[in-house]
C-alpha cells in the first residue's frame, strides 16, 4: 500500500524525452466497427467500377505520368480529401464548416489575381509564385480564424457561423477577381494541380502529406485527444481544464488552410480561378466524406484515415458514373442512395429495426437446431 501511494502521489517528470512507441493500429481505425462499413463500401464501389470498366485498375506509365482510372480517382479525390481532413477535426469538436467551398474560391481567386500581377511584370516580391501560394494559404487561415472566432469566442452555433462565410465568401471571391475568371500561365502554381512526381499527380502527394502531417499533429501531440474530449463532453472538458477556445480556433484554422490548398489545386489544374464554380458544393462532399468515414456529426471520436477513405468513396462513385453507361443525370440519385445506405448501415437504430424484423426467422432457426 505504501508503495502504491508513492506511485500515485508523486508527480512524474513529464519532460523526460521518451520515444513514442507502442504504435497501435486501432488508433488509426477509430470509431468501432464503423471502419468496417467504410472500408467495405469503398471496396464494393471499386469492384463495381471494375465491373463497369475492365481497365479500371489498369495503370500505365505514359510519358513519365501514371494514367488510369485509379490514378484519376486519387487525383480527383485530392481536393475533397484535403477538405475532409479539416472537416473531420471540425466535426469532431461538434462543429461543421459550411464555408470551405467559398474559402476555396476566395483563395483560388487571390492566387490568380496576385500571380497575374507577377505575370504582368510587377517586381514586387509578394507576387512571386512562392509568396502567392503562402499568401493564399494565409488567407485561408484567416477565413478559418474568422469562423473560429465566431464559434469559439462568440459561441455562435457552427452551422450558422460558417453559413455567413459560405454566403458572403463567394461574393468576396467574385469581388476579388472583379467578376472575371482570371487565367494564368505560371508553372509553379500550375504544378499544384497538374504536376507529377515519379509519375504520380502532385495533388495526390499534397493530400497524402496533409493527411500525414495533420495525423501526426493531432495524434503525436495531445490535440487529437483534446479535440475528442471537447466534442464528446464540452462541459466535463471545461471542468478538466481543457482550453476549448484554443482547440476550436485551431480546428477551424486547419480547415481554412486545407480549403486554401484545395483551392490552389483546383485552380492549378486548369490554370485559372473561377470564383463562381470553384469549390461549389464541395462543403457538402466533404461533410459526406467525413460522415461516411464514421465520424459522428455530434462530435467525438474521429479518424482522419477513414475520412480520407470517405473522400475516395465519393470520387470513385463519381468516376464510376462517368465511365458507366448510366445516364449522366442519374449521378445525384446514385450518390444520394449510396450515402443513405452507408448511413443506414452505421445507424444502430436501423440495425435494431432490421434485427426486429428478422427476429422471427432467428427464433425459427433456434427451434430447429
Amino acid at each position: 500500500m505504501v508503495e502504491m501511494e508513492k506511485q500515485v502521489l508523486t508527480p512524474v517528470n513529464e519532460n523526460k524525452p521518451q520515444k513514442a512507441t507502442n504504435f497501435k493500429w486501432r488508433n488509426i481505425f477509430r470509431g468501432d466497427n464503423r471502419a468496417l462499413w467504410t472500408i467495405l463500401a469503398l471496396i464494393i464501389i471499386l469492384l463495381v467500377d471494375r465491373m463497369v470498366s475492365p481497365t479500371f485498375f489498369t495503370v500505365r506509365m505514359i510519358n513519365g505520368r501514371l494514367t488510369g482510372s485509379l490514378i484519376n480517382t486519387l487525383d480527383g479525390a485530392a481536393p475533397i480529401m484535403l477538405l475532409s481532413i479539416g472537416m473531420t477535426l471540425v466535426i469532431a469538436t461538434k462543429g461543421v464548416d459550411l464555408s470551405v467551398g467559398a474559402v476555396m474560391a476566395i483563395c483560388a481567386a487571390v492566387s490568380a489575381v496576385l500571380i497575374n500581377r507577377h505575370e504582368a511584370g510587377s517586381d514586387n516580391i509578394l507576387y512571386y509564385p512562392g509568396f502567392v501560394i503562402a499568401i493564399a494559404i494565409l488567407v485561408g487561415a484567416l477565413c478559418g480564424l474568422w469562423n473560429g472566432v465566431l464559434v469559439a469566442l462568440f459561441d455562435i452555433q457552427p452551422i450558422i457561423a460558417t453559413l455567413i462565410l459560405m454566403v458572403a465568401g463567394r461574393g468576396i471571391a467574385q469581388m476579388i477577381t472583379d467578376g472575371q475568371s482570371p487565367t494564368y500561365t505560371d508553372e509553379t502554381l500550375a504544378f499544384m494541380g497538374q504536376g507529377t512526381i515519379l509519375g504520380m499527380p502532385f495533388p495526390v502527394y499534397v493530400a497524402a502529406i496533409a493527411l500525414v502531417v495533420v495525423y501526426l499533429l493531432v495524434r503525436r501531440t495531445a490535440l487529437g485527444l483534446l479535440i475528442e474530449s471537447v466534442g464528446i463532453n464540452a462541459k466535463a472538458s471545461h471542468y478538466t481544464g481543457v482550453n476549448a477556445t484554443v482547440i476550436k480556433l485551431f480546428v477551424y484554422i486547419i480547415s481554412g488552410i486545407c480549403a486554401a490548398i484545395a483551392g490552389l489545386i483546383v485552380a492549378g489544374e486548369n490554370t485559372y480561378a473561377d470564383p463562381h464554380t470553384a469549390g461549389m458544393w464541395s462543403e457538402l462532399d466533404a461533410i459526406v466524406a467525413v460522415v461516411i468515414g464514421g465520424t459522428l456529426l455530434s462530435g467525438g471520436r474521429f479518424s482522419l484515415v477513414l475520412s480520407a477513405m470517405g473522400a475516395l468513396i465519393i470520387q470513385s462513385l463519381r468516376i464510376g458514373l462517368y465511365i458507366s453507361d448510366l445516364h449522366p443525370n442519374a449521378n445525384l440519385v446514385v450518390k444520394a442512395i449510396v450515402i443513405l445506405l452507408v448511413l443506414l448501415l452505421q445507424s444502430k437504430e436501423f440495425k435494431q429495426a432490421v434485427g426486429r424484423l428478422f427476429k422471427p426467422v432467428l427464433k425459427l432457426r433456434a427451434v430447429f437446431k
Partner: protein
Amino acid sequence: MSTNEQPALLEVRGLTKTFTATPALSEVDFTLYPGEVHAVLGENGAGKSTLIKVITGVYKRDAGTIRLNGKLIEPRSPGHAQELGISAVYQEINLIPTLSVAENLYVGRQPRFLGMVSMQLMNKKARKLLKTFNIDIDVTRDLSSYSIAIQQIVAIVRGVDLSAKILILDEPTSSLDRHEVETLFSVIRSLEEHGIGILLITHFLDQVYEISDRITVLRNGRKVGEHLTKELPRAKLISEMLGREFTETLGKRSNQITNGDSKHDTFLDIKGFAKRGMIEPFDLEIKKGEIVGLAGLLGSGRTEMGHLVFGINRSEKGEAFVESKKVKISSPRKAIRYGFGLCPEDRKVEGLIADLTIRENIILALQAKLGWYRHIPYKRQEQYADEMIEALHIVTTDAEKPVRELSGGNQQKVILARWLVSNPELLILDEPTRGIDIGAHAEIINIIKRLAKEGKALMVISSELAEVVDYSDRVVVLRDRKKLTELTGDEISEDAIMQAIAEK
C-alpha cells in the same frame, strides 16, 4: 387515510428491469392506494428512478405486471401514461425554458376556443391555477426567466392539474424553501382528500414523516420493506435503506489534525466570495493536509460553494489567496493552474468523457495542464492508467475500454484517478461516494484520508453525514445557500450538524 381493505389504485408485481447485465430492478412489488402518500425511499442507485420510469413508460420493463384500478396497463410512453392517469414530476425540471409559464402548464393540452389554441384563455387559466397555489407571477414570461423554485412549482402544478389518478413526485422539494414546501404540502394534502394516490421520492426524511402515509424501501433494485409511516422508527428506516445497523456507521471520527496546528500551513484562503442567486458571501480557509467537509441538505449551496472555489462560476466579490498570494479564480483552467482539482457531482455530465478510454480519461487533466504540445507519450500514459487501475482497484479488463462501460463506482474512481495523476494541492470532491457500491465506498474514503495525510488540502461535499463526520477535520454547515457555521475537532458529530442545520 388509507386502509388495506380499500382496492389498490396501482398494483405493481414482480417488476424487473435490467440494463446491460446489471439489474436495476428485480422482482419489485409496489402497491399504491387511493388517497395516500406513499414514499419510496432508498439510497442513490436503489432503483427508485427506474421504478417510476417503468411506471410512466419511459423504459420498457423486462418482466412483471402493472395494474391500475385492477386493470392491466401497458404504459408505452409518458404521454400514454398521462392519458391513463399517471403523471410524473421529475427531479430535473422537465419543462421547456423557451416557452412561457402558461404554455408550460398546458403543453399538449392547450385550451382551445373555436378550434384554435387560445393564448388569452390559456393565460387566464394559468393565472387562476397558480392563484390556487398562492403564486402570483406573470404567466406570459419565458419560464427560463424565473428562479428554479418557481420552475419546480410550475412543474408540480402542471402534474397536479393533469387531473391525474396518480401523481409521481420525484424530489419535488429539493430546491424549494420552507414556505414553498408548506404550500406544496398543503396541496398534496388536498389531493389526498380527492382520492389521488401520490408516489413520493425524496431525500428529506423529515418531510417523509411529515407527509407520507406509507413507506416502501428499495435497496440495490430490490424491495426490502413496506411499512406504515407511523409504525416505522427512523433508526429502522435508515438501517433498511443502508442495509446495515445504524450504529455501525456512527464510528468515532478519526481525527488527524487539530485546529490551529502550526505545522499545517494555510493553502487556500477565501474572503467574502459570493454570487447572486447561488450563494451568499462566505469565508473559507483550507490548510494543507486538512479535510474540510461541506454539510447541508441538497440545494443548501454546498455544490455552489465548490463551483465558486473552482472558478466554474465566477465570484462577484471577495478575494482569494493561494499560499498567501492573491489570485483571481476566473475559470476552471485558472483554478487548475493554482493547483486545484474538482470531482463533480454529476459524473456523467460534468466529469466523464464517456467515449474516451479509461486511459485517456485518466491522463486528461494532466494533459490539459501540460498543454497540447507537451504530449504525454503513450507508454507513460499506459503506465499512469495501469498504476491507477491497480491502486484504486478499478475493475476493468484493460485501460483501453471506453469509460462509459464501467460501473458507477469505477467511473468515480477514474475521475479521482484523473486528478491524482495531475497531482493537485487542493481537491474538491462533490459527492464522491454517491451511487457506488459499499466496497468502492470504503476505498474512496480511505483514499481521501490518505491524500490528506500526504499533505493535500481536501474539500469534500457529501450528503452522507456519517461519512462527513468520519473524515472531516472541519465541517462547514450550509443552509439555504448560506454558510451557517463551522464545526471543528470534537464539536463534529452528526447531531451537531443536524442541529446547526435545524437551528433558526
